[in-house]
């Protein structure tokens, strides 16, 4: 199945196109964690995970055509 990737800020370099975007072919029933590991995203960075714009987490199972967004906030405010 295919999953769309949308990575923000410091995670953009880990996306398929290196700019934050791209589609990825993955096995059915892949979890968010599987995909992040596959793309070598460092697990220690605090990040907010969304699937199709709503809440997700590393254990969430993806479906064909889903969009996985990952946003790592930086300090300051």
């Amino acid at each position: 199945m295919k999953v769309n990737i949308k990575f923000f800020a410091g995670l953009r370099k880990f996306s398929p196109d290196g700019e934050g975007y791209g589609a990825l072919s993955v096995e059915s029933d892949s979890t968010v964690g599987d995909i992040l590991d596959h793309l070598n995203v460092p697990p220690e960075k605090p990040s907010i995970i969304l699937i199709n714009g709503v809440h997700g987490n590393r254990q969430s199972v993806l479906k064909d055509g889903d969009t996985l967004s990952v946003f790592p906030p930086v300090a300051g405010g």
Partner: protein
Amino acid sequence: MKIYVNERPFEASEGEKIASIRDKVNPRADLLILNGFPAAEDHKLSGGDRLSIIERGVVPPIEEIEAMIGARHTPGLRERLRGARVGIAGVGGLGSNVALALTRVGVGTLVLADFDVVEPSNLGRQQFFTDQIGMEKTSALAETLGRAHPGVALELHPVRVTPENIDEIFGGCSVVVEAFDRAEEKTMLVEVLLKEHPDVTIVAASGVAGSYSTEGLKIHRVGERFYVVGDLESEARPFQGLMAPRVGAAGHIQANLVLRVLLGEL
């Protein structure tokens, strides 16, 4: 003829002078503003004139303040915002600016949460003052907001926001502003809201430190109801800390985003 006194309709006689109106409304008034500019008391009024009659040092009644703030620039706006309830998580460099802007524009209720107290280093960028050092930030800010507009309803939570108390603090808010400092706390708040309050719109910030160009302060729609203001990269660090102009600008972009959400423009 019909004129407006303190933004309320008023029936005046043809050619009536400002002094005459002043004596009817408040003889002690010592500041007379006609159509936006100071005017002499012997000036003759014309139909449609807008006259503000002010007694220096006296806070006008809240209804009069409401009328005078609202009528001139955006009639009807404040009525639309009066029922709104907005949460602000963290009232530092971002949150104190967001709160002040939303108070001034007329948001009805603000829920302020911050465990911290005002200390001198905060004064470089946050809306606190030297005589408030040592106060809880929520109380100090409430004092300032009340001076800006006594009609704003405030709920103060001088506690650390945790996954366990988010519902209790921000329940009933249609919008919550994420204005924390630490990345872990930003993540925690947004995750809990996305998961447990999917109907709430989140207006967060990330990448607001330093003196970099404010053109980098973009609005990113990360989720369906999740917006992030900032350049996403400029982390607060030594020699590139949070500075009043840029973090204040980011806070005001957040406030404008909240306003647009409340007005149904997004």
